[in-house]
Each structure stands twice: as structure tokens, then as C-alpha cells.
């Protein structure tokens, strides 16, 4: 059997392996770069902000808890109104930087009937209350030191990190989500889309 020189063969084989890897890379990138699931659209140029079309929205689970000021609160009592639900913690750096945005948006949209509600996770009430005072947050937050609310939301929208902001429509379905620090334009775009329906 004719045999090529061993070294040359190794080079050929290595080159083949690399070429194969390259080919699969191209294939994988081509496939993974593809479209989004039906009923889900991203806001322009931002995969962190998601809008769910009507009919493709998960029901937001109900939860209840105590606010940072000690009042009992039940999420179901918000039914019938659009709610912006913000998951945050006083320890979370981007939550700190987005607080001003949320305060401005809340002050503006609360006049048009949109409710804002915070879920303060993995936090102590003293620090969270100080945060709310310090940033003049105009809406209540439920204290959830043990992440039970994210656990309840698990199958609807995975709350994988703070901050996460959800827009819940009047029928109690999740219509939009912003993963990471929310911007004013993302929030107003989502609220506009939800209000338009």
C-alpha cells in the first residue's frame, strides 16, 4: 500500500480537522443567527427587550407579600390595569443606575393609569427601604428576600438576574420584558405597544 510521508500526512489531517471545524462553525453560526420564536419580537437593536404578541403571552402568576413599609400586598389586586413589575435589590449595581429612569417613568405613567410595583429580592428591608427613600421611588416594593416571586414566575418568564422589568397587561398576561438595566425608551415603547391594543 503506498504511504505518504508521515509528517505530511499529519499536516494534511490537521488541516482537514481545522477546515472541518471552520465548516461547522459557519453552519452553527448560520443556524443560530436565525429568527425569533413566533409571537416574540425584540425592540429595535436590542435582544434584551422583548415584546410578546397577544395570544403568545404567559399569565403572570399571583403572589402576595409585605411591602418595605410593612403593608400586605397581593398582586392579583392589580388586575385590570397595566403593571410595570421591576425585580431589583439594593445591592445590585445596575438597579441603582436604573432607579432614576424608573422613578421618572413611574411619575409620568402613573398619571395615565399604569401601575408600578417593585419586587425587592435577596435583600434586607432596612437597606431596601433606605434605597427607596434615597431614590424617591414613588411606588411600593414587595420584600422577597428568598426569591419566592422569581420562583413563581419560573415557567412564565425566567427571572435570571436583577434587574428584570416586566410589563403585565390589563388581563394579567406578561406582554413585555426587559432583561438588564431598563431604559426610558424601552419602557415607553413597550407601554405604548401594550396600550395600543
Amino acid at each position, binding site marked *: 500500500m503506498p504511504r505518504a510521508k508521515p509528517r505530511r500526512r499529519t499536516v494534511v489531517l490537521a488541516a482537514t480537522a481545522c477546515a472541518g*471545524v471552520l465548516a461547522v462553525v459557519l453552519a452553527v453560526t448560520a443556524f443560530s443567527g436565525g429568527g425569533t420564536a413566533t409571537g416574540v419580537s425584540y425592540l429595535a437593536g436590542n435582544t434584551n427587550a422583548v415584546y410578546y404578541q397577544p395570544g403568545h403571552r404567559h399569565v403572570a402568576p399571583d403572589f402576595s407579600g409585605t411591602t418595605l413599609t410593612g403593608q400586605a400586598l397581593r398582586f392579583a389586586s392589580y388586575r385590570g390595569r397595566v403593571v410595570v413589575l421591576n425585580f431589583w435589590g439594593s445591592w445590585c*449595581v445596575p438597579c441603582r443606575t436604573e432607579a432614576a429612569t424608573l422613578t421618572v417613568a413611574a411619575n409620568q405613567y402613573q398619571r395615565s393609569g399604569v401601575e408600578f410595583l417593585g419586587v425587592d429580592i435577596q435583600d434586607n428591608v*432596612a437597606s431596601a427601604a433606605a434605597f427607596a427613600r434615597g431614590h424617591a421611588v414613588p411606588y411600593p416594593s414587595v420584600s422577597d428576600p428568598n426569591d419566592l416571586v422569581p420562583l413563581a414566575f419560573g415557567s412564565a418568564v425566567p427571572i435570571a438576574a436583577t434587574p428584570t422589568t416586566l410589563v403585565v397587561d390589563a388581563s394579567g398576561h406578561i406582554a413585555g420584558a426587559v432583561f438588564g438595566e431598563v431604559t426610558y425608551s424601552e419602557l415607553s415603547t413597550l407601554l405604548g405597544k401594550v396600550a395600543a391594543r
Partner: protein
Amino acid sequence: MTELRTPPPADRAHVDEDGFPAAEAAASRGTAKAPATGFGLAGWLRWAWRQLTSMRIALILLFLLALGSIPGSILPQQGTDPAAVSRYFKSHPSLAPLLNHLGLFNVFAAPWFAAIYLLLFTSLVGCVVPRTFRMVGSARSLPPRAPRNLGRLPLSAEYRTGLEADAALAKAARLLSGHGFRLRQPDGPGDGRWLSAEKGYLREAGNLLFHLALLGILVSVALGGMFGYKADKLLVEGGTFADTAIDVNEFHPGRLVSGSDLPPFTLTLTKFSASYVSSGAQLGEPSAFDALVRYTATPGGQARSADIQVNHPLSVDGDRIYLLGHGYAPVFKVTDATGKVVFDDAVPFIVGATGDFLSQGVVKVPDAKPEQLGFSGAFVPTAVSVNGTLESIFPAPDHPVVSLIAYGGDLGLNSGVSQSVYDLNTAQMHQLAARPQVLQPGQSWTLPGGKGTITFAGYKQWITLQITHDPGQLPALVCGAAALGGLLLSFLVRRRRIFVRVAEAPEGSVVQVGGLTRTDASGGFEDEFAALATELKAAHESPPRESGD
């Protein structure tokens, strides 16, 4: 003779069964041929497939896999430490986007990394599957025809018997098949009087088992990689842990695991107790750890109690929860200059390397007025003062104290870059007091300059749990055991052949017996052959009465 020198077709298939040379030989044939003869697309595809499934390519891919995981251990990874990635972006503004484009901050999810392991997987499967089929064929094949001259075989015997040739052959067949040999007899009356017997098919079965188990291991590992996950969680006494991606401190999901796939259990650490040896040479060595927990497998379900110990994990809903480590979490209450409580929580301190649980940690109070407060401190479970410095002499909290350094200023949280909760960035802060303050449980420290107070309210203990889910674990174990068993079988069992030829002779017949084994590395076939030949001869010499039945 020629029949012996060149194995029959059935034999040729398993000439190269004991390793990977079969695929390699095919590959080298392909290599030699490919550049020489111009063949079409199908030819090139076949050539590429042969290359891919060759041992050498598999090794190169394995090497590439190892090479590819190097950046994962050098550069900060998005999956394990996103804060470090952000810091890297700030410190290397021009280099970081380029590296990010190459997926080097998330190596194990990068397309090129996936390509390597997918190719490796294909290569291994492509190598093992055809071999498996070949082995099935080999295990089912009949022994070859008996060679003409048995006297040329490594082992042979010849004797005369009073029996007629046909009777002698029938008797030999009965005896050999009684010994578990697989027989091949002449195709027809004109084919001569001979007998081929083969034994040791367990070797092929073992080989087959080994290769199938190898495939099984691959599939199990892939299962684990796609559907498994691993998460770490630090839990303070009294704290509850919900199995969500947000609640775990580190989450390493498989490729097909999303945050919502975790079983929705909650677990509360009721109490943690550690016992230490309090005398003798092993003073301070841990003797027992018990994490008493209550857990509910599903939201709203019934709460159960459990005691998690080291190497005694708790199993919930397919997850295993291991106790990894423990430490102390002093409880601090901080008021600011306005008198408002701005912090009240247990703060997990990191255990030092000294074994006496001298632990360090930081307290950040970002919403204190008029300026942010930060404390860096040490927790000493059993403190003694040695020449004015605190030392810990025992890991149990017999005389706990904390020593705190207080800072005021800007914690650096507004820059948008994530920080570790265990690091205090004092670049824009100033020390409030020249000396560290030592506090015992219940004691408060009024900060200089009316900046507020900090109270060391007490302490709790924390544990770290590892939650693992590996659906491939059990299959991998079973397949591993099967692979080992198959390998042992294929090493220990030999394939061996006995040939018998009977020729008519005056007053009876001449019986020739030949023996052949392909791999007689461990020896012992000679004895077996001698015993069989003796037995055959004895059977053939027995009175004709017996030969009649």
C-alpha cells in the same frame, strides 16, 4: 496451506478488531488515494468521512478541545463571573470587543467550541458504529472450512480408530458440540469428511459490549451536558433558597437547560452545627457537620425535614444537594447620620485559609446619608489577644468578636460596573477612624464625626450547597461498568478452533485433529487441545456398542 495463510472473507473482517487500526487503515488508504485519483463529490465526501472517523483526527480534535478550553481558564467568563468580564471591558477597551466577537468570554457556548465537540462526537460515533456492525457479523459467522493438511497446524494429533469414518466423524461432532463448540460440517457428500469447530465467541460478545458501552458513555455524557446543570448557593441560617437561576450564586446549565427547567423546590436552612475535636492532637479538626433543613419539593407542597451532611446529599426531584462548606455571618445593624436604620442583615464572611475560621468580609451601606458607608472586617470565632493583635485559636464560636475598619465616601456603585459583594472599593473613600474597632456581640460603635452607628448584633452560620443534576450519571456508570466487563471478556476469552478430518483406512479410519488459536497471548490452549484430543481418541476407541447410540 493457502487457506490458512489468507484468512477466509469472514475472518478478514475482524483481523483489525482489537483497537482502531481498521478505521485507520481505511483512512490511510483514503489519504494515499485522494490526491492521486480525481474522483467526484461523493468520493470526496467519502474521503472526508473516512478522515473524520479516523483515530488520528479524533486525537487532533481532542487536542483542539483541550486547546480551546484554555482561554476559558485565562479570560473571565460570562457564565461564571460577569462582573469580572465587565471589569475586563473597562480595562481593555480596544481588545475586549475583539475577544468578545470571538466568543472568548463565553468559550463553552461559542460556536467554534461547539463545532469542535460536535465533530469529536461525530468522529467517535462514526468510528464505533461501523465497527459494532462488523463485530455483530463476526460474532455470527461460521468457522472456516477445515484446512486440508491438519498436520501443519500449530497443534495437531493423528490416530487410528476401529470405527468407520462416518461414525467417527459423527462421534467427534457430538463430542465437540457437547463441549460448546460451534460446528461447521461439509456442504455435501462430495465435500470430504471434515469438521470445523470454533469456541470463544464470548470474546466477540465482549468486544461488542465494549463498543456499545463506549457509545453509551458518549450518549450519557452528552445527556448530562445537554440536560444537566450545576449550581452553587450560599445560604445563611434562617434563609430560604428557591431553586431558580436568579437565586443560585453560580449557575452552570447544560446546553438545553433554561432557567425555567429547574425543579421548583424551596429549602430553608433551619440550623447548621459543626462539631470540632476539643482536645488532643487533632484539636480544632472538624468531627461532624449537620445542616438541618426543611424543604418543599413543589410550591405549596408539604414541608419535610432533612439533615444534609458531607457526602450525604439530599435528593429532591432528580437534583442532588451537597453540603460543600460553611462559615460565619455576623449580623450588623447600621444607622446613618439621620438616625435611620439603613442596614440590618447577616453578612456572610469568607473563611480564611488558616483553619481556625478567622473570616473576612465587607458591609456596604450605599444608601446611608450624607455619605455612603463601608466596613471591612474580620470575624474571629474564638478570639485571644496576642500582643495586641487578635488571633483565633479555635473554629467554634466560643468567644466571637469582630474587628471593623469604617470608611465613608463613594462605594463606586454608580459607575455601572458590577462589584463583588466581598470586595470593598475604597479608592474614593476615606477611613473614618484611625484604628479598627473590636466589637463583641451586642456592642455598638458610634462612628466618629456623627456618621452613624454600627451594631454587631450577633452571628449566624452559613453553608454553601451545590445543587447538581446529571441525568447521564447513572447511564454513564452502567455503561462504564459494561465497557470494563466487555474489555475483560475480550481480553480473557480466546477464540480457538479445532479441526477434525477423518480418512478411510483398512479396518477403520485415520483421525486427524488440528488446533488453532488466533491470539494465544495467555497460553493454555495447548493443554486444552491435548485434553480434547485425548478425549476424542478415548471416545473413538471405546467399544462399538457405545458408538451405536
